[in-house]
């Protein structure tokens, strides 16, 4: 792409125009969009694992059905996103199989929260309440992405997330109005997930790649803007439940309209995500590999089933 073509592309971006899969685009733009959507899609798939652990142990049939439905939605979102990424990656010779298996070899990362343990039923609720809440805030900011196929598919994903949000809140509310033991479970779970949620949006000082994504308007809000939106929505809700947030620095400044908070351990979380070194990373990746490889014969059989049956 010549300098003039690049300038014309950037003019389109700054005019707020949207880019389609078949448009001319700088290689850097293509690679950044693939990186973003690939990571997003794989995170949806890996995001099903912590909750799936609770399907056999759900406290009643309705909760079990809801949890299965949510797991099914998350895998479905992964499929939709990988499809979008795949259209952009095809000219680079990259297809679905590789996009899926990259997670086995650490060539694609997934969100820090999905590396963490979900030891009690309260975690199933807190994941729906806080992790989905955070994910919706992030995804809402991408509804205006310059890459149109991504923005379009996110409309559907956000609509389906509305059930996830209510489902998570329903579990949390049931525990919050329950016994001391149940309230204790809820508080422990909040304590467990809070630092992960602060890391979830990424460091205030963004990476070079994230900065480029902002310039290309692939994403439109900074990490810190998203984190502030999250804190502003969810801290008052946690407090309303009579729960505490494990951060003594948490404070709203009515002049700057910003929250102060304790930084999560950036270095540790960063290392964990990069090296799949979290408490559940390896176990969940192994399950993912087992599912993918164990079902290879089904994918193979489907090709055979699609082949014309010779007439007698």
């Amino acid at each position: 792409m010549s300098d003039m073509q690049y300038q014309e592309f950037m003019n389109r971006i700054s005019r707020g125009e949207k880019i389609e899969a078949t448009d001319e685009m700088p290689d850097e733009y293509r690679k950044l969009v693939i990186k973003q959507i690939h990571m997003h899609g794989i995170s949806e798939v890996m995001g099903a694992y912590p909750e799936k652990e609770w399907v056999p142990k759900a406290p009643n049939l309705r909760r079990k059905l809801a949890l299965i439905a949510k797991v099914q939605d998350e895998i479905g979102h992964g499929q939709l996103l990988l499809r979008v990424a795949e259209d952009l990656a095809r000219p680079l010779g990259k297809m679905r199989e590789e996009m899926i298996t990259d997670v086995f070899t650490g060539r694609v990362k997934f969100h820090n929260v999905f590396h963490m343990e979900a030891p009690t039923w309260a975690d199933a609720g807190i994941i729906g309440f806080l992790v989905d809440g955070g994910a919706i805030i992030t995804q809402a900011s991408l509804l205006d992405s310059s890459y149109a196929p991504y923005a379009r598919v996110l409309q559907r994903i956000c609509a389906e997330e509305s059930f996830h949000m209510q489902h998570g809140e329903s579990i949390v509310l049931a525990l919050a109005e329950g016994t001391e033991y149940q309230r204790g479970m809820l508080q422990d779970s909040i304590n467990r997930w809070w630092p992960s949620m602060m890391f979830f949006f990424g460091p205030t000082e963004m990476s070079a790649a994230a900065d480029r994504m902002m310039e290309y308007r692939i994403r439109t809000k900074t990490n810190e803007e998203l984190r502030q939106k999250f804190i502003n929505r969810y801290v008052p809700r946690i407090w309303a439940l009579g729960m505490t947030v494990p951060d003594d620095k948490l404070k709203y400044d009515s002049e700057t309209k910003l929250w102060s908070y304790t930084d999560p351990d950036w270095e540790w979380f960063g290392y964990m995500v990069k090296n799949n070194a979290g408490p559940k990373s390896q176990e969940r990746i192994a399950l993912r590999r087992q599912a993918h490889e164990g079902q290879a014969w089904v994918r193979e059989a489907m090709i055979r089933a699609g082949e014309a049956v010779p007439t007698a």
Partner: protein
Amino acid sequence: MGHETTNGSKDEVREVHYDVYEVFVQREILAHHVHVGSVVAPSPELALQVARENFLRRERGVNIWVVLQQSIHQTSYEDTDLLANQVLDKSYREVSGYSENAQKWKQFKERAITVEDLVNDIKS
């Protein structure tokens, strides 16, 4: 519309049959393409022209797809089992199945929120 041409002779009339294309119109850039009907045309390029004349004389559109009708695979209306996904109560996977959340939040002196609230937070 006349799809017939003569080859010059008074007796022989050669019938010309065009292909059928199904038409999908995208009304705005972040909308999905929606099926609006079909046209006949001798080529994809002309099908796009005819589709514009037929379906976008008044409304605004930003993009049109035409797909050869024979390339479309569809379910059978008779095969009701395939799409019979509403036989069980699915309120557990609908927002409406969680309406009691709002009363519970009220007991905790908080307001229930929806995805739209979070989307609006981003716009503000």
